[in-house]
């Protein structure tokens, strides 16, 4: 096991390197540069800016100098924020997304697994249709619709949560992370619910469950001790990248609730062609993906004794 984990962590290096290279060249190939604006600056100004940021050098040279910085963990200055470096931008935006993502994950897991298990156990009866319909509704209502609805209800209506902003909002009882987390959580809960139900149904039909029932093992023990482990297997595969995606920030909820997270930073950096920030966030996200895929693979191995050989 340890060997596997170390091996996977070592794989981070080539993966990140390829990711970096691909993103670097992709973003340079897309038309439009960081310095074009509606009121066009003179060609001289643009030339000066390109020179200042080293963008006038040949592409391979830019690539190599960029690599040499990255190796020292220096991702360069951000073109969007004139006094901040990319490291600083990520350092201040990530905690916001992290909080929202973790809370959303917990909500999604709690609601989703519960709903899925209840539905599977009561297959084709009322308590199957009810949670599954709610789950369907959750998937049908996209975050850019659910977000404003929640903002209007809990923010303007009940005055429980702020509708915009992140700091200095202690005149409402709920922390600004709650509404965005709820919006995201409800959406993913629906997915998890359906996958859980499917997984549980597969397991509940198997012989060893029938044996346990015949032996008189009480229902709740069957569900929790015997079925869950196998039933949750499909969602564990799904959870790794989902968690990584959640904590690196969802652009839509961050925009709707105006929280300064990493999702917004990334999309803005793409639109501003802020190359260092694009690369910084992509590499950061790459690290998260690899780590959490590893975590979910390890969990899968632990949960399913058949895979351990």
């Amino acid at each position: 096991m340890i060997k596997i984990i170390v091996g996977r962590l070592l794989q981070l290096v080539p993966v990140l390197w390829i990711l970096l290279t691909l993103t670097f060249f992709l973003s340079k190939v897309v038309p439009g540069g960081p310095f074009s604006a509606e009121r066009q600056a003179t060609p001289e100004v643009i030339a000066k800016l390109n020179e200042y940021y080293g963008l006038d050098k040949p592409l391979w040279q830019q690539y190599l100098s960029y690599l040499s910085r990255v190796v020292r963990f220096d991702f360069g200055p951000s073109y969007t924020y004139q006094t901040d470096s990319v490291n600083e931008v990520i350092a201040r935006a990530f905690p916001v997304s992290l909080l929202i993502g973790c809370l959303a994950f917990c909500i999604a897991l709690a609601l989703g697994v519960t709903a899925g298990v209840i539905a599977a156990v009561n297959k084709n009866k009322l308590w199957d249709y009810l949670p599954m319909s709610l789950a369907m509704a959750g998937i049908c209502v996209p975050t850019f619709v659910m977000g404003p609805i929640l903002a209007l209800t809990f923010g303007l209506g009940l005055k429980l949560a702020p509708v915009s902003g992140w700091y200095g909002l202690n005149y409402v009882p709920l922390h600004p992370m709650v509404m965005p987390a709820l919006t995201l959580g409800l959406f993913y809960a629906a997915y998890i619910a359906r996958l859980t139900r499917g997984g549980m149904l597969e397991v509940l039909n198997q012989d060893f469950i029938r044996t346990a029932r015949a032996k008189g093992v009480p229902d709740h023990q069957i569900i929790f001790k015997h079925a869950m482990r196998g039933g949750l297997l499909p969602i564990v595969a799904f959870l790794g990248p989902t968690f990584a995606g959640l904590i690196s920030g969802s652009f839509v909820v961050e925009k709707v609730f105006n929280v300064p997270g990493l999702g917004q930073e990334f999309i803005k950096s793409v639109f501003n062609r802020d190359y260092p920030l694009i690369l910084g966030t992509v590499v950061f996200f790459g690290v998260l993906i690899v780590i959490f895929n590893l975590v979910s693979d390890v969990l899968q191995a632990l949960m399913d004794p058949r895979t351990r050989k």
Partner: protein
Amino acid sequence: MAGASVPDQIALLGDEQFVKGTSLWQDAWYRLRKNKLALFGLASFCFIALVCIVGPFFTGYTYEETELSLKASSPLDRIVLRTETRKTGEPKRSFIAFSNLGDEFLEKSRDERSTIEQKIRQGEKYEEGRFTYQLSARRHFFGTDALGRDLLTRVLVGGRISLAVGFAATIVSVVIGVLWGATAGFMGGKFDSFMMRIADILYALPFTIIVILLMVLFGRNFILLFVAIGAVEWLNMARIVRGQIISLKNQDFIEAAVSLGLSRTRILLRHLVPNVTGPIIIYATLTVPNVMLLEAVLSFLGLGVQPPLSSWGVLIDEGARAMETNPWLLWIPAAFFSLTLFSLNFVGDGLRDALDPKSSKD
């Protein structure tokens, strides 16, 4: 009963039912037919698809003709024809929603306005300067959007796009995802590592940039939209399939197949994959809505369907913004969207149940 001929043996079985051997698929179809919910889902889905394909020819409006003065009128609102006589040329005709009639006469008092509305409601003509107002027979079943375009037609045409994109992209993602994930899971070891690391890289690549690039390089090609979206969605499917394959491949029946000397491809395709159809179908039915919504997000970034064409995702986003003032602009496309998804999911569940060899004769 040795010695008796076959027909005799059958006759000897008496009233027992003649059990005919059936294949997996025939079995599944039989079970599916008995599942009322799944049938309902299938029927409603077909109905929606049919209406979207054929309907726009019968609504009497096109999806792009605007009627600016109508603005956003609510479903089945009465409509008033306003004729303006001009100094030169034909009189100009335009339409106004009955509920917005008050805005035409803002200088008048409230009483005067209600008398005018009363008059018009009864079908009489009302003249004011160069303008003549009269009730018209024009109706919009689902109302109109901000530019006065018939919402019913737009929703149906949007449905064509959403359904096409949804299905095409899902099929692409299922095919690639299943093959990739199954191969990775089955082969294991370094091969598996390599394939999954590639998947990781693709997952972390900035999708937005790639789509911008594709749109720029290849123009506004619809096929491209499917490709771009399908190319992202398969990654999760691959992970799930791989997980399932890994847990299955160590089971006895696979060991049996291996010892029988079956080729690896055959084992993979004919023994392993059919056993993971359950999760595949479930995830596929989850992918379709995801794809439709992703298409909407792309359109907002300027990378999707070109106006005045629309899709359900775009209509829902427009509706979400007008939610407080013109709620029908949200609820109607959302209802179509939800209904389609519910139907697909019932069918998906039904299929999953039908194909599961273990849930058979209970």
